[in-house]
């Protein structure tokens, strides 16, 4: 790590003298592709988004020049009810998906952490949805959600003894977002499960042995050894799931296009629609700046929490 401390200023000129021109140029050459590509495709668009957000930039160039319009885009966004709907929708989505997805991931990780026959086979099976592309997941769940005779409605009918009427999963504004939650949780829980498994394996066996000697039962060991040991894992899992949830897009774009009645409109979908379909790139850039600020705040909260838990 000491290699990282910056070279003092007065020695800066001597780098070439120290290592020679050939080595100096080689190092530049090896670093340049990554630095160059990141500058063009990451830093530039990022900085540009702040500028574009303050203009009336259209998607296709027009004869009229692009005008600087200050914070007008932001004001218009904040006055648009649909934007607030989309923000509320992703918040709702997050509040649903956190307990369902992380809870299920935690449960499967606890079950798989014990020694059992075919453990690796099970682990591989449980991870399969996580490597399935979202588009494929939409094809699969598009059939599962069929109304009124799809498999999910069939299961609901059998479990409720026919008391619950078939649900129009994607067509009912009350259900559409919950359907997105189910589909997304199924697709993504495998990742959180793996993180939890790693967290569980990081708890030293000696702690369990000590608890056992102290007379702790199964529950006692769970509450006093497993849960405290997993605190940083919980924080990490909750934060990455929240960030992911706020970027909800693909499944909504494919299955509901934000509908019915804007009940599944999300921030990214709203951005893509205003920028790509309505061709208002400046406006869409302003939405993307807001999205970045949201993600940044969540990431900063994570750092605070992680520091508090000493990781």
């Amino acid at each position, binding site marked *: 790590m000491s290699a*990282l*401390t*910056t070279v003092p200023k007065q020695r800066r000129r001597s780098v070439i003298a*120290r290592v020679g021109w050939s080595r100096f140029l*080689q*190092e530049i050459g*090896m*670093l340049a*592709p990554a*630095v160059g590509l*990141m500058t*063009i*495709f*990451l830093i530039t*668009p*990022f900085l540009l988004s702040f500028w574009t957000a303050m203009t009336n*930039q259209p*998607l296709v160039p027009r004869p009229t020049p692009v005008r600087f319009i200050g914070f007008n885009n932001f004001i218009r966004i904040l006055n648009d009810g649909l934007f607030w709907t989309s923000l509320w929708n992703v918040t709702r989505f997050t509040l649903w998906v956190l307990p369902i997805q992380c809870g299920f991931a935690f449960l499967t990780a606890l*079950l798989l952490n*014990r020694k059992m*026959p075919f453990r690796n086979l*099970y*682990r*591989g*099976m*449980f*991870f*399969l949805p996580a*490597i*399935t*592309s*979202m*588009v*494929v997941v*939409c*094809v699969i*769940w*598009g*059939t599962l959600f069929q109304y009124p005779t*799809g498999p999910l409605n*069939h299961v609901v009918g059998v479990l409720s003894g026919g008391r619950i009427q078939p649900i129009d999963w994607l067509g009912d504004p009350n259900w559409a977002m919950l359907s997105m939650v189910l589909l997304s949780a199924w697709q993504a829980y495998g*990742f959180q499960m*793996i993180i939890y498994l*790693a967290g569980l394996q990081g708890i030293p066996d000696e702690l369990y042995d000590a608890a056992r000697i102290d007379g702790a039962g199964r529950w006692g060991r769970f509450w006093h050894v497993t849960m405290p040991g997993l605190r940083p894992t919980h924080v990490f899992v909750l934060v*990455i799931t929240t960030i992911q949830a706020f*970027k909800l*897009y*693909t499944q909504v*774009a494919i299955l509901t296009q934000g509908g019915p009645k804007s009940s599944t409109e999300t921030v990214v979908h709203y*951005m*893509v629609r205003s*920028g*790509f379909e309505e061709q208002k*790139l400046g406006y869409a*850039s302003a939405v*993307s700046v807001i999205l*970045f600020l949201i*993600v*940044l705040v969540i*990431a900063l909260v994570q750092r605070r929490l992680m520091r508090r838990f000493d990781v």
Partner: protein
Amino acid sequence: MSDLALSVKKPAAALNGYRFVQSISVFIIALVVISPLFMLFIASLKDDRFQILADMGSFRAFWVDHPTFNNFREVGNFAGELAFGRYLGNSLFILFSTVSLGLIVNSMAGFILAWGSLPGRALILAVVIALYVIPQESIIMPLLIIVSRAGLSDTFTAQILPFVASPLYTFLFYQFFAQLPKELYEAAAIDGASIFRTWWSIFIPLSLPALATVSILMGIETWNQYLWPILITQTDYARPISVAIATFFGQDSIYWDRAMAASVLMMIPILLFYLVFQRWFISSFVGSAVKG
């Protein structure tokens, strides 16, 4: 002695009722979780799209009387309509180009950041780590301006080049190289190896775990790209299979049989890859979680 004691204890533990309940519940949950995927593969072998939907409500969803590859024959064209052969090829080309370029570019940068002697490396590293927080979604609109002004709309380049260099992968390589022993680097220097040679002949052969992790993470990310290709591709020329499958949903009546077959086509490469490298997959996802 202690071995003996353990071997006596074990069978007793195995008969434990708790263990039994646990095994059964894992088995049942696994079946439920996997059943939608199983159903996809079965349905892709059924020729009648109305039959597929009719079978869905029962256990017939998991059984096919007369398996046929007709759906695959229908969608597997290389030109014209339903050219999923071409889309699959496009996706594979984008995948291999992005991952192989990405391995070279990010590992070179990670190596220089860890072992180079350029001034300002600490600053570059700090910037790289900070860049990681920027979500792709929030730069995609300006990126669209840059790429289309550069005349790269509807090209493979537009789908490969922007994603080659990545803060996360450069950082993962940096982290891996930095923890290799100093002696390796010094030995190479004494032998008079150039810095490029040291990277290529000494460090790269030792970094199989890092190469595997980055390949897998990058591969999955590239394979699943959807938003960017939808914005940047207009014709069949460079359209990836993910975007092509999504077009099934734009129709009034969805051809589920074809959509299922196309989905299976999209799953096969990643599934094969996964079956061979399962252990690597899981550890690489853990690796991606350990970050600054």
